[in-house]
């Protein structure tokens, strides 16, 4: 049973957090995430939730308070963007290192300087190696669905890792969309309250956050790596359980037209929606194109990528963030590494687009598809990395 609501991406995330019965929200406002903290504040002030909302004085303290709450056994949610995520950076590693299953909405926004409030993925890519599971959404519906699933994945005793659910700033955060929401009772059946056995309780005292020198630090990091290795299995399980609630099945990677595509685009987030529309148009003209969209970016779904690319002749990797000085930007590095590791020959090129919220238009994507088809045919990549949509 679903109910239809008109929600922005931010509102969809806040609504999912509310239905997830979070115990603590510690958050600080930042554009374009602000709607999330505002919406949640309303739930609190209208007595709709049991949640304790800690209106902290910075994102650094937001994540610090979240860690404290999570270690006390609470279900914890927060949200941020851009500079806020950067200010949290230090705490992100501690949240994963102390195995706190916090869920955070990250409303992706460019990083300063120059200051800019619009959407790109520089913020999350800057904290890519923080040890969190990272999910990217195409629209408000996906954001809502993934937040509900995220708590269940994060809190699984085999995982115990924090998760970011990413949406594109403004493009998704502020766009009003039709969202199918599930009844509270149904959500409750899917996701009960958090019940943590290890918590700051005077009856079962333990020390957490101890100093680990050369003799133990490496093992704790190795355990984290193991948890990320196990995570896909848990994600699959939660996706299946979610299917019972939602009647639709998520996975680690979304694909479109891959059954016969020879040329494809792989990208994260909302751009995939536009790419699918353009691909549909091209496919109706008989062009064999497709779209690959990793929902789960960390841990990187290597097996799914290999499966998705097995019949491709060319792949354009679209990065909405730039890794200065690197041969490829983040997503492309992962794609190329995965292909190379598995001895897979595929003509890949990297396109950096949309920095600072610069629009990527259907026309841009049309041209990229055509270029990818050309590469598929000629088997020659002219430029391994190029910028699209910028005045040169």
């Amino acid at each position: 049973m679903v109910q239809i609501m008109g929600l922005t991406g931010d509102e969809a995330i806040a609504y999912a957090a509310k239905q997830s019965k979070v115990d603590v929200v510690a958050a600080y406002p930042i554009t374009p995430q602000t709607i999330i903290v505002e919406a949640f504040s309303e739930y609190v002030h209208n007595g709709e939730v049991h949640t304790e909302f800690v209106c902290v004085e910075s994102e650094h303290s937001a994540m610090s308070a979240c860690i404290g709450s999570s270690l006390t056994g609470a279900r914890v949610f927060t949200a941020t963007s851009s500079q806020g995520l950067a200010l949290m950076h230090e705490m992100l590693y501690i949240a994963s290192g102390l195995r706190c299953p916090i869920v955070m909405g990250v409303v992706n926004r460019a990083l300063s300087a120059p200051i800019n409030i619009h959407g790109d993925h520089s913020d999350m890519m800057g904290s890519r190696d923080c040890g969190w599971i990272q999910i990217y959404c195409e629209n408000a519906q996906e954001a809502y669905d993934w937040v509900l699933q995220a708590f269940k994945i994060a809190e699984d005793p085999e995982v115990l890792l924090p998760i970011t659910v990413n949406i594109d700033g403004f493009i998704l955060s502020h766009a009003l969309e039709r969202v199918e929401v599930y009844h509270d009772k149904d959500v409750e059946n899917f996701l009960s309250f958090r019940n943590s056995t290890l918590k700051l309780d005077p009856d079962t005292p333990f020390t957490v956050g101890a100093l680990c020198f050369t003799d133990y630090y490496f093992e704790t990091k190795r355990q984290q790596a193991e948890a990320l290795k196990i995570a896909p299995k848990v994600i699959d399980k939660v996706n299946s359980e979610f299917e019972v609630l939602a009647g639709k099945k998520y996975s680690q990677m979304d694909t479109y037209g891959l059954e016969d595509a020879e040329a494809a685009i792989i990208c994260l987030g909302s751009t995939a929606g536009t790419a699918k529309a353009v691909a549909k148009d091209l496919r109706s003209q008989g062009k064999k194109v497709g779209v690959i969209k990793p929902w789960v970016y960390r841990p990187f779904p290597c097996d799914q990528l290999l499966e998705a690319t097995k019949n491709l002749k060319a792949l354009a990797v679209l990065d909405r963030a730039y890794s200065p000085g690197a041969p490829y930007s983040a997503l492309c590095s992962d794609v190329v590494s995965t292909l190379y590791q598995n001895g897979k020959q595929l003509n890949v090129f990297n396109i950096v687009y949309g920095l600072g919220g610069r629009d990527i238009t259907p026309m841009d994507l049309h041209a990229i598809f055509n270029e990818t088809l050309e590469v598929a045919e000629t088997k020659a990549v002219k430029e391994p990395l190029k910028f699209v949509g910028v005045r040169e």
Partner: protein
Amino acid sequence: MVKLQELTTEEKFTSGHRLCAGCGAGIIARMTLKSLKKPAVIVNATGCMEVASTIYPYTSWKLPWVHVAFENAAAVASGIEAAYKALARRNAWSKDVDIIAFGGDGGTFDIGIQALSGALERGHDFLYICYDNEAYMNTGIQRSGATPHGASTTTSPAGTKIPGKPEFKKDFIGICVAHGIKYAATASPAYWNDYITKVQRGLSVKGPAVLHVFSPCPLGMRYDSEKSIEMARLAVQTRYWPVYEVEEGKYKLNIKVPNPKPVIEFLKTQGRFRHLFQPQFEKELEIIQQWVDQNWKHIIALCGEI
């Protein structure tokens, strides 16, 4: 005032930690835990107390203890308090637990002041204890906002031109009191009864409370380790460290010092001030005495003792 026999003989902060002999932080931790009347959880900022008491897989703490980072003990305590409240609301928690956060002067006066200010303003129910050894002792004695004028540290060395730290110590309690909190106090481990009474008072008030404790440091202040308590007493008897409390905005002087020793008595026993006794820097000794006199006058005026 508490009686010695009322204190528990149980050691919740156990021996075997790796703090230096004579370290004030260890004495303060032990006395704090002996003050407890209820179960408690400890949050520890990065610093000497933290690194020396929880070297994995060992711990000195026989109660729930958490360390997250350097600058955020107050924010972590906020999160713990929020969690207990929320869990109680859904009947998943029913215990009455005291929350105590420890930070050194670096983690409190400097890098942690924002998180502390936020937590005090939001009114979380916890006790923040700043053990002030007057420099970043854990990283090898660098100056902090709590380092007194003239003290030599590795980042305010006793140079030939600049004799130690040019600036003066922050009025930390003044900053805390300005937040309108119900209880704030200074203390010295040389006066155990006063200290324990204050820990208990701070824990009993609803909302945030702050203690600012002088923490003698043989390594950084440079004196013999058996003299720590003597040093903590001298700080009070020279009026260098006024011992007072502020309850609901009302100041009270807890230890009167009618016949103070000159501050030189305190300074001359510590290597960090040794350079000030060279003839070319002797005026610095007068400057420190003036600061002590002015600060004392300021505090006792607030306490209504003038």
